[in-house]
């Protein structure tokens, strides 16, 4: 009697396993179908990409949709940092290097080319009760590195400044600190692990000041203008909003590019992916 029950449980497990297996194979079939109908060319092979951790979300969304269109292409991404991505492209270990900063002169001198595929705008947010509505880049630097500790120094109330930021390793933190020029010297009061938490933290503290991806800013907090320029998709695209950085593909001039790599660069810089880029939290080129 007991044995039979155990047997029944085993069969049930086996059945469940086979069912999920069936479901899985059906999925891949339907994806393959979609690929055949929408794309006539048949690309295949691997694309090795790697570099900046900040671009992870964008590159993930792009490669996922690209692989859906071209099921025989396999795109890998190794988040090792912008520096490693550029080196990888230079010495040929990567088909595509990913960087969240523009190339330096000595890097372009090595024969590297940058192709921008998205922009990253970082909004500076304060509590909605805070009367400060415009800050210069210099003031933001002072607020972040602790040389300005009271809001009255930048035209606000007589209240202490509380910097709320992200944890070490976060792309937004890296972006903010490198653009404003406060790498490793920020005087954080709170280090939170998501953009949403930073916004909630700023919304909860009247003295708070923080940074967040442009796409994540909502009406619970106030985004200040930087040097008089409001942070919007348009001002990031035309370059007037200062706290932004490009997401670039790094390729080596003269190195032979595979078909699939070329197609992927073309796909990622095309207008049809703007929605994907925006969904991933970055600003599309157009």
């Amino acid at each position: 009697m007991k044995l039979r029950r155990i047997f029944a449980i085993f069969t049930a497990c086996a059945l469940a396993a086979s069912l999920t297996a069936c479901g899985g194979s059906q999925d891949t079939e339907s994806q393959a179908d979609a690929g055949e109908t929408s794309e006539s060319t048949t690309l295949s092979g691997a694309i090795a990409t790697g570099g900046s951790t900040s671009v992870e979300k964008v590159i993930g969304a792009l490669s996922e949709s690209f692989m859906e269109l071209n099921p025989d292409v396999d795109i890998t991404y190794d988040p090792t940092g912008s520096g490693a991505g550029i080196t990888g492209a230079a010495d040929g270990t990567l088909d595509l290097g990913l960087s969240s900063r523009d190339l330096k002169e000595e890097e372009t001198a090595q024969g590297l080319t940058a192709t921008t595929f998205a922009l990253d705008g970082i909004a500076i947010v304060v509590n909605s009760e805070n009367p400060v509505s415009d800050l210069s880049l210099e003031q933001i630097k002072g607020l972040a590195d602790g040389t300005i500790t009271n809001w009255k120094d930048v035209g606000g109330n007589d209240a202490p400044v509380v910097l709320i930021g992200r944890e070490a390793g976060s792309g937004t933190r890296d972006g903010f600190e490198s653009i404003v020029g406060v790498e490793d010297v920020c005087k954080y009061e709170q280090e939170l692990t998501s953009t949403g938490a930073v916004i909630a933290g700023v919304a909860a503290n009247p003295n708070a000041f923080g940074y967040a991806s442009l796409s994540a800013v909502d009406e619970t907090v106030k985004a200040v203008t930087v040097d008089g320029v409001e942070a919007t998709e348009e001002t990031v695209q035309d370059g007037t909003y200062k706290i932004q950085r490009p997401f670039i593909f790094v390729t080596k001039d003269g190195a032979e590019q595979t078909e699939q790599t070329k197609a992927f660069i073309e796909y990622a810089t095309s207008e049809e992916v703007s929605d994907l880029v925006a969904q991933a939290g970055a600003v599309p080129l157009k």
Partner: protein
Amino acid sequence: MKVKHVIERVMNTVFFICGMVSIAAVLLITIYMVIAGLPAILEIGPIDFLLGQVWQSTAADPKFGILPFIMTSVWGTLGAVVIGVPIGLCTAIFLSKLAPPKLAAIVHPAVELLAGIPSVVYGLIGMMVLVPGVMNLFDLKSGSTLLTAILVLAVMILPSIISVSETALRAVPPEYEEASLGLGATWIETVCKVSVPAAKSGIAAGVVLGVGRAIGEAMAVMMVAGNVANMPGLFKSVRFLTTAVASEMSYAADGSLQKQALFSIGLILFIFIMLINLLLGRILKKGAATK
């Protein structure tokens, strides 16, 4: 007869395998933690790692000193015990010795419910209520402090202290108490001077269990402590051993010293918990010996 024999054998094996699974899990975790955690400690240097006061894992010149995390975990746990143990012990005495049955029937399930609340809910309530509360009460610029984390942890360790101490107090032989009453002591005197000392090893076990929970808690303290790698201060934003691992793990690049150092923090935490469990085992053994 034979079928019965076979079933006996098979079931024996099944139970044996199930027993082995947990042992294998403990062994695997221990071995993995040591393998993953040791290299970074050796590379950074045990003294720089354990006694360094600066943690800047992604700086151009990275520093990996985890003394702030260790001290925060120690002070945070200590603070939670100082607040939680008196409340927990008194609740246990109340439930086991003083409460009218009807009232106990309400308080008891409430305590059990407290144990079942997920830690993220504690964190959420801490973030919404305690953080602004502490900020306004002490006129601080930010309410995410060690004190806030201590308050959250104190509530979180209550259930283990209460339920273990209550069981221990109920197990005190009634003859002890009757003898005390017979000698003219009041009920409260009896409880404080006879029942509690008689149940002390059980109470100690409850406290150690609570300490284990407090030191291992990550989610709730991450939401209220602010997570800045400062040396601990009651009104400073602090980072615990657990939150140090949890907050940086998701972005640490594979193979980097940062990630390895996070594993090393995990190893230190693991050693802490092991020591606490050893202490617990010793207390329980001692308690059994005196009985």
